[in-house]
């Protein structure tokens, strides 16, 4: 009951602040921008002109499986920044303004408070991400050639696990820090640190959450889900669950300290 109340309140809040309009639009933009640009680049260069006489630039043929990966590259860069930015004040903002105290003096479980907010943000991001990837699939199909539904949904589901992880990291920092700006900085710092670690130890630990997208790349090429991808996905889900439980403790500790 309580859980649903907070969940609905959060959805309503996102609707009032127009997040339900602009977040999906920005996800669609992020997902379709790169495939479109790649497709039109030769023609844009042609019509802009300014190339020396006789200059020939060979553009490599882009297979549809590569084209759809461009959307993921954009999402990994700007999408995670956007996710951290829309999640940065979900709990921290309420603690700063004192709303959280009003809610938590009532018999509301910390865990249901955190998970309902987590689920509400995840729902918004899931809808936005679905719209963005469907738009990207449509354009890739139209401009680069067919992409099988099997591969698309493999990519879609496994990448969403990475998005769950990014939301959970941001929620976790929400329970530690009170200022939204610091939550944003800490979340983005974590994503960057993880991606550096993943690159350094790429050979030794292929199960880093960040390696999900490189495993998806090989899934797109081979059409088969490698065992590394399964394990990386499992590890990512596991870390997310641990982070959610840790958020519960850190919020309780922070609220009791006051």
């Amino acid at each position: 009951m309580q859980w649903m109340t907070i969940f609905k309140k959060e959805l309503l809040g996102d609707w009032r602040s127009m997040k339900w309009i602009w977040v999906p639009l920005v996800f669609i933009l992020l997902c379709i921008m790169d495939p479109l640009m790649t497709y039109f680049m030769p023609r844009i260069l042609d019509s802009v002109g300014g190339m020396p006489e006789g200059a020939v630039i060979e553009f490599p043929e882009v297979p549809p499986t590569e084209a759809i990966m461009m959307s993921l590259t954009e999402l990994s860069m700007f999408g995670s920044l956007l996710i951290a930015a829309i999640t940065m004040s979900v709990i921290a903002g309420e603690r700063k303004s004192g709303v959280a105290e009003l809610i938590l003096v009532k018999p509301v479980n910390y865990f249901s408070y955190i998970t309902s907010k987590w689920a509400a943000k995840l729902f918004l991001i899931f809808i936005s991400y679905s719209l963005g990837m469907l738009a990207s699939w449509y354009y890739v199909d139209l401009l680069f050639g067919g992409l099988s539904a099997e591969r698309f949904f493999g990519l879609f589901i496994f990448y969403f696990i990475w998005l769950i992880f990014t939301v959970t990291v941001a929620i976790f920092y929400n329970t530690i820090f009170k200022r939204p700006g610091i939550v944003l900085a800490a979340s983005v710092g974590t994503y960057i640190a993880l991606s550096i670690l993943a690159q350094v130890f790429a050979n030794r630990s292929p199960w880093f959450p960040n390696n999900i997208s490189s495993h998806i790349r090989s899934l797109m090429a081979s059409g088969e889900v490698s065992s590394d991808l399964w394990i990386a996905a499992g590890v990512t889900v596991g870390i997310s669950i641990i982070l959610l439980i840790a958020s519960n403790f850190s919020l309780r500790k922070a609220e009791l300290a006051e």
Partner: protein
Amino acid sequence: MEEITSMLPIIAPLIVIQLVLMIIALISLIKAERTNGHKALWAVLIICLGYIGPILFFIIGRRQD
């Protein structure tokens, strides 16, 4: 010119998305009682920076309270 008109049906959604973002950002700017920073400055940013202006406004321009 012919090149550009042939691209138009495919590019059109991008332009529509950008316009919608700009319009809802402007509406919410006008409705907001207070913003972080001057309102007129935000109006210029939203209109001139393409799709980056509205995103910046929604993330840092709006006051949560």
